[in-house]
């Protein structure tokens, strides 16, 4: 190898190292920018929300067109969100689990793929289209808006999520358990209900908590199904109920700084709830992973 070749090779190496360094730098910069943007959003919502937070937000109802400084809150929105998201979970959870049981324990592969595709497609339907769907299916000519109909719309958004996570958890349950149970003469349904499901319950809970966190902030489907509301606090899902995301949406478009303050505070509470839910979900996930594996 001549000296010239050696220099050329080390030149090449130097260039390659330089390219490497600059690319690494770019990745650092990209990461930094992204983290900065994301951090600013979270921090800003947190900062503004925290400073506007007080008990009135949860306990007082809004006063429409108020000229006064009387304390206002969004008690009606928090009540409505509790009712609607609760109902949506009650609808989506059992159906999602049943779908998962069917796909994982019973369905022949072709059906499994077909229904799996349907779930993926359902997950890809934009929330606003789900809103149109529920509106034209249930609201028009069906007695108007109500909390139940809004819950149904949210349940549609939750269903693929719950079903998918449950399928994944069920698939993790060791087959040896099923075989042992069946070997002892336990029928398949009892095996599923009392051996497989209890093993998977932590994972299902994780998925559910995440799904709840996801739909609690969903606005678009509520726009057409539960938006004709007054300031009164209501718990009856047969009527339209105000919700937190819709309230934030409306307040965000107001010119009044006092309305903005309430919007920030409500956004903060919503965000806090979602963060807590995610943390809970992560905690449940680590716990249930241990349990599924049988350790």
């Amino acid at each position, binding site marked *: 190898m001549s000296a010239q070749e050696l220099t050329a090779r080390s030149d090449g190496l130097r260039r390659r190292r330089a390219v490497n360094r600059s690319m690494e730098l770019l990745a650092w910069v990209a990461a930094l920018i992204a983290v900065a943007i994301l951090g600013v959003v979270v921090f800003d919502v947190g900062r503004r929300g925290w400073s506007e937070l007080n008990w009135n937000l949860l306990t007082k109802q809004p006063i*429409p067109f108020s000229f006064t400084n009387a304390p206002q809150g969004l008690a009606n929105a928090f009540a409505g969100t509790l009712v609607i998201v609760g109902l949506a979970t009650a609808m989506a959870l059992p159906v999602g689990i049943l779908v998962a049981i069917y796909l994982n324990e019973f369905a022949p592969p072709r059906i499994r793929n077909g229904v799996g595709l349907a779930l993926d497609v359902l997950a890809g339907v934009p929330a606003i289209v789900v809103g149109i769907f529920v509106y034209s299916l249930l609201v028009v000519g069906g007695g108007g808006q109500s909390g139940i109909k809004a819950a149904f719309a949210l349940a549609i958004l939750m269903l693929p999520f719950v079903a998918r996570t449950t399928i994944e958890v069920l698939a993790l349950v060791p087959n040896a358990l099923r075989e042992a149970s069946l070997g002892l003469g336990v029928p398949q349904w009892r095996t599923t209900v009392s051996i497989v499901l209890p093993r998977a319950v932590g994972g299902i809970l994780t998925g559910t908590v995440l799904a709840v966190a996801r739909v609690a902030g969903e606005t678009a489907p509520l726009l057409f199904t539960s938006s004709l*509301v007054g300031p009164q606090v209501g718990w009856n899902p047969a009527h339209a109920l105000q919700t937190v995301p819709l309230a934030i949406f409306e307040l965000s478009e107001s010119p009044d700084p006092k309305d903005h303050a309430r919007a920030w505070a409500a956004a903060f509470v919503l965000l806090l709830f979602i963060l807590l839910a995610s943390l809970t979900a992560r905690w449940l996930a680590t716990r249930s992973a241990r349990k599924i594996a049988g350790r």
Partner: protein
Amino acid sequence: MPNLGTSIRIVTALAAAAALAAAGAGAASATPAKQLTTLNGAGSSLIAPALAVWGPAYTKAAGVEVNYSSVGSGAGIAAITAKTVDFGASDAPLTPDQASACGDCVQIPWALSATVPTYNIPGLHSGQLKLDGPTLAKIFLGRITNWDDPAVKKLNAGVRLPNLKITTVHRSDGSGDTYAFTDYLSHVSSQWASQVGTATSVSWPGGVGGAKNPGVAAVIASTPGAIGYISVAYVIQNHLDWARMKNSAGNFVLASAPDIEAAAQSVKTVPAGNKMSIVDPPKNAKFKNAWPLSTFTYVIVHTVTPQAQALRKFIFWALTPKAQRLINNSFLVFAPIPTVVLSAAERTLNKVHA
């Protein structure tokens, strides 16, 4: 010299004090009595301030709760058509299509107010900007694009107009304010009439959209050079500035309650469907100060409805002088409806039954 903005703020503060006392009294009785009858309504954001006053007052007077959702006139018409609510509210009369879709619906004029051209020009307070119909139309057609345009200058001799780009702001939802505003522009500008027309929602030549009255107010407040149209109560609530408009008598007026009342005097007879347009009222020696962008606002109900009795009682109550007085003040600015319209309203209301 105290300018108009300041005096409005003072009035608002006084009104606020009064309302605070009222709210305190209201809060004391806010613990829900058992099984109140509830009337659910939705629609016009123009009438929403009135219902914010009427609702609690009527609950006190009659023990009936009125639950109103300010979603815009278009949405109000859709809601009553779909029977999603007990009553709809709209500042725009039903179109023939809407009337037939709504079936046995009747529209009853129950309040009178105005939409006003609202602007954000730094340094120019309420009433300091003067406009006339054709100029306003040109601005919204995009033919006048700067505040120092000669056409605007000509109307505002002695006012320093900045070299500032005009941003027009309109409602993005179906709106009765849009109806009144486009109705007015169609009256005063043939180009507007042929190119855009009159409706609750039109094909805007340009500009920024805002949701309902608060949304438009928010865009105007945050956009230097903006001009839009807003129900007068929202302008006052949000301390925005609005223009003096030249009416057909040649006077520049400022949408006070008497000016709005004067415009309504142009109604001599009420047509069968109660559809009335009082924008750009003809020149009249007696009502020289008529505000040219005034509008009746309607409550829409089904003739046959299970809530007939409660609805009739409530609407009759709203039409009483007492109820009309509740919303006729310097910060809500609803004018009392003329007698001829009142009797037409009551005639129509009598048709409503269970």
